[in-house]
């Protein structure tokens, strides 16, 4: 038996028939071709499959597609807006926070989740927030630096936007 679900993915509303046992990550990767979301383990440890579901990071390998019915999902493909990189994407490049790039989409999603709740995180808060995302290449140091740098950028950006609006 298949279920029709309706959800918003990267800004576009979609109604899709899914198998009840289909995982969200299978829907994203196999059905919708959004292969920027990766699968690195089968026990929810690595976090490579993280996507935004209703504004919070979720491990899409541990969530059924039917559970996303009515949800707003943002994957890494939906992070750059109008050709403009998200500050986290720009910071990851600037700080050399990626090597093989496989964990990077999940890292950026989890970092975005943190910054949405904690705009000015301490190093310990960043490290704690990313403990569910494994990286074997970077040793995390530059990832932490990138999150700090993006946080600073994002704290300034709303102020700049307000100033722009007042002019």
């Amino acid at each position: 038996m298949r279920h029709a679900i309706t959800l918003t993915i990267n800004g576009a509303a979609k109604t899709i028939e899914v198998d009840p046992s289909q995982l969200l990550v299978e829907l994203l990767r196999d059905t919708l071709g959004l292969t920027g979301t990766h699968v690195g383990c089968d026990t929810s440890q690595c976090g490579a499959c993280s996507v935004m579901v209703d504004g919070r990071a979720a491990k899409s390998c541990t969530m059924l597609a039917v559970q996303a019915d009515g949800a707003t999902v943002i994957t890494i493909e939906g992070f750059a807006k109008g050709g403009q990189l998200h500050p986290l994407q720009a910071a990851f490049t600037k700080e050399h926070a990626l090597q093989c790039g496989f964990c990077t989409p999940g890292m950026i999603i989890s970092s975005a989740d943190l910054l949405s709740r904690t705009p000015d995180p301490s190093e310990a808060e960043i490290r704690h927030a990313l403990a569910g995302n494994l990286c074997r290449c970077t040793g995390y140091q530059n990832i932490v630096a990138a999150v700090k740098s993006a946080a600073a950028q994002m704290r300034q950006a709303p102020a700049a936007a307000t100033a722009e609006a007042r002019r």
Partner: protein
Amino acid sequence: MTATATPYIGSRVQRKEDPKLIKGEGIYTDDVTPPGTLHLALVRSPHAHARINKIDASAAKRQPGVVTVLTGADTAATGPLPCFITLPNLKSAKHFPIASDRARYSGDAVAVVVADSRRAAKAAAAMIEVEYEPLPVVIDARAAAAPGAPILHEELGTNIAYVYPVKGGDIDKAFREADVVIKHRIKNQRLIPNAIEPRSVVVRPDEGGGLTVWTSTQIPHFVQLITSLNLGLSQNKVRVIAPEVGGGFGSKLNVYAEELLAAFLAKTLGRPMKWTEERREGYLATIHGRDIVEDVELAAKKDGTITGLRIRGYANLGAYLQAFAPVIETVLHIFIIPGAYRIPAFDCEITGVYTNTTPTDAYRGAGRPEATYLIETTMNMLARELGIDQAEVRRRNFVPKTAFPYTTITTLAYDSGDYDQTLDKALAMADYAGFEKRRAEAKSRGMLRGIGLSSYVEICGLAPSKANHALGVGWGGYESARIRVHPTGAVQVFTGTSPHGQGHETSWSQIVADSFGISPDDIEVRHGDTFESPGMGVGTFGSRSLAVGGVAVHKAAEKLREKIKLIGAHMLEASPEDVVFEGGKVHVKGVPDKAKTFGEIVFQSYMAFNMPDGMEPGMEATYYYDPTNFTFPFGTHIAEVEIDPEVGTTKIVHYVACDDCGVQINPMIVEGQLQGGIVQGIGQALYEGAVYDDNGQLLSGSMMEYHVPTAADVPNVELSHTVTPSPVNPLGVKGIGEAGTIASTPAVVNAALDALGTLGIKTIDMPLTPERVWRAIKDATPKEVRK
């Protein structure tokens, strides 16, 4: 084309790899699914050692979506999996993708299901009934080498694959004349590599009987070679593409069973085949690393001068020999054990043994971390025994700066070095002089604080082909590069290296940019496609890519640079000696305005009417670079830890490193390699270890039981460097991919033992889990003091 005079070698150029990766646009193997793809699922033995009496796949074959189920007998036409090593008297066991008579480790494949979806294949695999007859199991190398142990490969008559001795100097005299002998047993536990991208392979049959293979590998050319040879396909019909590869660390440095099987099935069934490992499956079916136990005896004088070193060890090779397994704990391990020290007498013998465990092979550092751990922990034991400071005991034994090139007792010719300099710098960064104050302060809080040094030398740039041959490596050690400058001046570089995170697209473009005086932005670097790259690329492993592959790129660029200069001189009607090529232009010496640009000269090479007589038109060059020697990077790392004796936790409170990898092409990438490498080495010291029970079941069977360090576990590290160029190659480069991992493990353990030494604890096995540390503390504490 942006002409520029800025040297790019040495600059922190932003990575060319990143834009697609940060947007999720990188294509990894599992992202490739050709139309009509069938999926494979392997049935794996749950027994570590068992006879396979019967396989009943009738129920599985009736499942919807199942195309076929094949066993070892059905797939024997794939031929055996390769081991590229031929040590003297090596006993090499036959290794087929699917075992047909006997399973030799838990995870050994016994059947393969082909179905129209991954789920259908997996469901059918679970319905296959295999009748096993369990056999006695042996998981420990020393036990497997003993008489009476269960034999894995009856045709060999023994579990001992090799006995590898290396001797030099008068070892008996060294021990006779010693004032002190340090003896201990050193264990480098088994590790699971854990590249975050699981292995994956896709094979598509092409028109004309060829195959296109996408695979997550470090060595696409070897996959092409073996696929072609084993399946009887002409090599030009097999295209192997390593697309984005999500980390390797040695675990993708093999031609694996699933690669050959997928190719065989695509060829015979005429449909695309796909297999992607699950992490738990990978823990069984992808190689493990390390797993060697060594008995060490170090002889020294009262002043700390080493007189000799004797080692007897057993390396656990697992159930079969993988591609490079026999060199890991022999060539790549024994020869570098003397490290940074003058050791006048040396006697080492390692026995490599088959056991009923997942095969082991190269894992980041591959033999060298084990060597550095051995010598560096032993140096600290010597220091403690004699009451000499751990920095001082190193200094007294260092190969002095004036001694290079230096031939070690194991016959390696160290290219260049200044070990005192990196030590001094690291000591200053660590505020080594102020440590005892910090130890006392920690003690006042009830904490045990320790500091540990690790001064390493490693072998990079594997390898001169002649050395490869002499050491039993069955292939050359060169690397290839081709540079094509199009008529418009667009530059493409094709490299035989196969990066998986190392940033070759960026670094190689910096190298070419400096030869041509143009910007790296104008240079495209392509890799990992056997139909594009030169005829043979050896691949990316052993910190060899820059010192061999990067130099090949430089040599190819210099060939074209010379040609550009000659054509430019001709166009300017000047003699070649009277022109210079700089800033993207050839101009007459002293007359910068009398010039031809890079673009004009390249265009002329294709118009070809105004060139020196007899010169070949076009602007393309290929170079196979075969170095004359290895390179030997070095450095000192210092860890400072605090142990909480109540709960046994070890926290790294400060970590500094001073490394020398020769000339740095891109310091940002060098630092990234070090940071990641150091954390991987910390993983071995504190967290990681594959654990088998006596029946050969892998107890650490998933990421839940095997702890890969997280961001919350590890510290920031403070890095610095010195530059001692290698005289081996024209770029003066050495290599940095493994140094962090090699250096950090002993630094952390030495720091922990420095802390625990105050309680009289002399040794401890890795990983230093809180339980292990807590027990060591309890055992060391006199009963009357315990509560």
